[in-house]
């Protein structure tokens, strides 16, 4: 194959935004996607919205969402561990991205049922992230972008401050190309559970991976080993509590469970370990990933009764159901006596439940219980009883490539002259911890476009 002007490693949102932008600037672009075609798109195929600053109504978004409010939301979830300069760049640029996305085939819709709280801040993709990915592949194809699937990049050869060569394998054959510029947009390393276990400890072997099995961090490791600047806590990942029966990989959105606030959650010894009613679920599902990870065998069990069954979004797998708590404990592999005792104690500490309100902090709390349940605390008394298991589901990792405001990578104190990064693989440059819904797609779109533009300028000049 003749080498392209620009090679883009990865096939998700950031890669596609870079490819389209570079191709529109006149460059010959090759996408190397490690997944087979049905699984193309990395974690973008599981996404559903784009968080977007806007002054006045924009596309599907209502009212306004200012830079300051957006930044404040981000600072809150990251506890201030944010690169403010890059964050402001992403936020500010997001407004022009939305019309750009529409021009390149993405279609939006009013926010989905169950997510009305995001109607002002997040633009939802009609059909979800895979439809966005499909639209971008069609657009890229029309622009002459070449796509190779099942093309696994194994090595980038560095000569001082320049990438001179890319090696990849496809159908058991090794290929080498020598593009003028390279964009890395191949995500984090969360699908490599050995790496996760090295970083987090052996408990990580019990984690489920919510997204693509193809984000194994091969290119990330290759570059970091060669001294490319890194960013982000290498031991940390973003994790949430999901249905324990979810597949090991790629379970995506459907494995979420929204019933924790109406439940008690116990560990495998049938003991409670945290306030289930601390806050509304969208603000708490992320900490529950860590809470469950800290329990024996990294598993939790949600217990609810009949009166709570219809208060939350339907689950992908039906709950385990029993007429008595003892039976439920048996079916879930919990010690029955201990579960009955935990529920009895909990029920005794519930007080007046007349103020119960499922969608707001209702202050219906337990008294004299440790840990307490500070909202939605209703006794679990009405059969049949229902249970779900909970496991830790990893969304993404924070370790990544450090980039500047032009999305360019660095080695020592100097930029690598022909290497840019976009998307999850550099998101650690902005997000130190935590996560804000729809911000991953913002980072991917903004920095994908920047990387594509810079790479094309470099390729066109050389």
């Amino acid at each position, binding site marked *: 194959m003749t080498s392209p002007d620009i090679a883009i490693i990865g096939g998700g949102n950031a890669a596609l935004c870079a490819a389209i932008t570079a191709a529109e600037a006149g460059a010959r672009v090759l996408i190397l996607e490690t997944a087979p075609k049905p699984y193309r798109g990395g974690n973008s195929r599981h996404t559903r919205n784009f968080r977007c600053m806007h002054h006045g109504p924009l596309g599907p978004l209502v009212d306004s969402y200012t830079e300051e409010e957006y930044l404040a939301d981000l600072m809150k979830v990251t506890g201030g561990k944010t690169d403010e300069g890059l964050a402001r760049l992403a936020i500010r640029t997001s407004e022009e991205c939305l019309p750009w996305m529409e021009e390149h085939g993405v279609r939006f*819709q009013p926010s989905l049922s169950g997510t009305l709280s995001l109607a002002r801040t997040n633009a939802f993709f*009609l059909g979800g992230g895979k*439809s966005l990915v*499909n639209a971008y592949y069609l657009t890229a194809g029309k622009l002459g972008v070449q796509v190779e699937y099942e093309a696994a990049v194994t090595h980038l050869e560095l000569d001082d401050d320049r990438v001179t060569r890319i090696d990849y394998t496809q159908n058991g054959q090794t290929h080498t190309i020598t593009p003028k510029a390279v964009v890395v947009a191949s995500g984090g390393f969360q699908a490599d559970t050995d790496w996760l276990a090295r970083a987090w400890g052996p408990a990580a072997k019990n984690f489920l991976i919510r997204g693509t099995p193809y984000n194994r961090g091969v290119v990330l490791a290759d570059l970091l080993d060669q001294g490319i600047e890194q960013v982000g806590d290498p031991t940390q990942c973003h994790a949430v509590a999901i249905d324990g029966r979810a597949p090991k990989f790629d379970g995506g*959105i*459907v494995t979420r469970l929204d019933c924790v606030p109406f439940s008690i959650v116990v560990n495998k010894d049938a003991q409670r370990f945290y306030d289930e009613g601390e806050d509304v679920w969208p603000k708490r599902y992320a900490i529950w990933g860590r809470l469950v990870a800290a329990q024996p065998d990294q598993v939790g069990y949600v217990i609810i009764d009949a009166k709570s069954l219809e208060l939350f979004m339907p689950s*992908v797998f039906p709950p385990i159901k029993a007429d008595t708590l003892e039976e439920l404990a048996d079916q879930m592999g919990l010690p029955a006596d201990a579960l009955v005792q935990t529920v009895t104690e909990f029920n005794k500490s519930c007080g007046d439940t007349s103020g119960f309100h499922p969608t707001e902090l209702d202050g219906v709390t337990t008294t004299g219980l440790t840990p307490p349940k500070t909202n939605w605390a209703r006794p679990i008394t009405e059969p049949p009883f229902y249970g779900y298991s909970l496991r830790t589901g990893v969304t993404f990792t924070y370790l990544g490539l450090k980039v500047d405001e032009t999305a360019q990578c660095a080695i020592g104190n100097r930029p690598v002259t022909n290497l840019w990064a976009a998307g999850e693989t550099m998101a650690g440059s902005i997000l130190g911890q935590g996560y804000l819904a729809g911000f991953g797609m913002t980072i991917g779109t903004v920095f994908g476009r920047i990387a594509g533009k810079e790479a094309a300028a470099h390729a066109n000049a050389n």
Partner: protein
Amino acid sequence: MQMQTDLLQEARRQAEICNACRYCEGYCSVFPALHAERAFSDGDLTQLANLCHNCRGCYYACQYTAPHEFDLNLPQALANVRQDSWEELAFPRAAGKAFQKNGVLIAVATVIGFALLFWAARALASGGGVGFYAVLSHNAMVAIFLPAFLFPLVSIAVSLRRYWRHIGAGPFRPAHLIEALRQAANMKNLKGGHGDGCNFEDEDRFTHARRAVHQAVMYGFLLCFAATSTATVMHYIFDMPAPYGLFSLPKLLGLSGGILLVVGCFEMIRLKLRSDRKLGAAGAFGGEVAFIGLLGFTGFSGLALYALGQTSVMPVLLAIHLGAVLTFFLFTPFTKMAHGFYRLTALTADAGRSR
């Protein structure tokens, strides 16, 4: 009625996964109706299946299609239930079972239709009429076609009543039917929610091809039907029997409708041949194509009859055309033609649900 439980169970399994995801909410009428339920009865699934226009937007947008272990293919799952419901609800049921999926039988029936008309032309003769009535008298035509027209109407009425009960729809309101007609008139459910059309002939690319072709077939058919209706009114009420000139209402309607119908059916078959059959009902492809062929041939033979009506082949063409019309009408409840009635009923029930 006894719908196939394995088809229903597979649709239920898939609907439950969809209900936990909801990404496809904006595509069509199926998803808002699906998301309104927590559990899916056989009636709910039958209604969802008949709301589905097989636009395939949800399939290509789905994160959970094969090789993913969830193996979602909602267009196919609903198409299977839909096909099964048409067979089971048909009156008489055996006719639905026999013909819905069987293209060969539809073709055989068409030939029998031709033969019947040839026999009628020979046996009953004209009794001194002019034009077409020289081949077969007006009264003979009425004697053949009135029952052939009324029987399907009765059959479909029985089926729709069964359908309405099966899905547990509320009371019928004309306003809901008007809403359903409005959606059918512009084929809203093949527009894809964003207005870019549907996925069909070219994987995940959205186009208006199928919608445009469906409109050509539907409006072509309606124009042809209007032509016959106008002629009937002119014959009985205004005492203006056929033949009619080119600038008469029956001819103008019939000619434009016939052209639309022929072009539409031809293009529909071409699109179908390019589409992925795994996203449709298993085993129904032959029956569908045979039906579209019959419908297109009915239009084509009508046009041929118009073009060659003054020549010596007219009697043969007339028998062939009327034979096709006869088969088409008689088989309306037992072929893909039934889908229009079920869709309209499903849309009416859905308008009632969402009010």
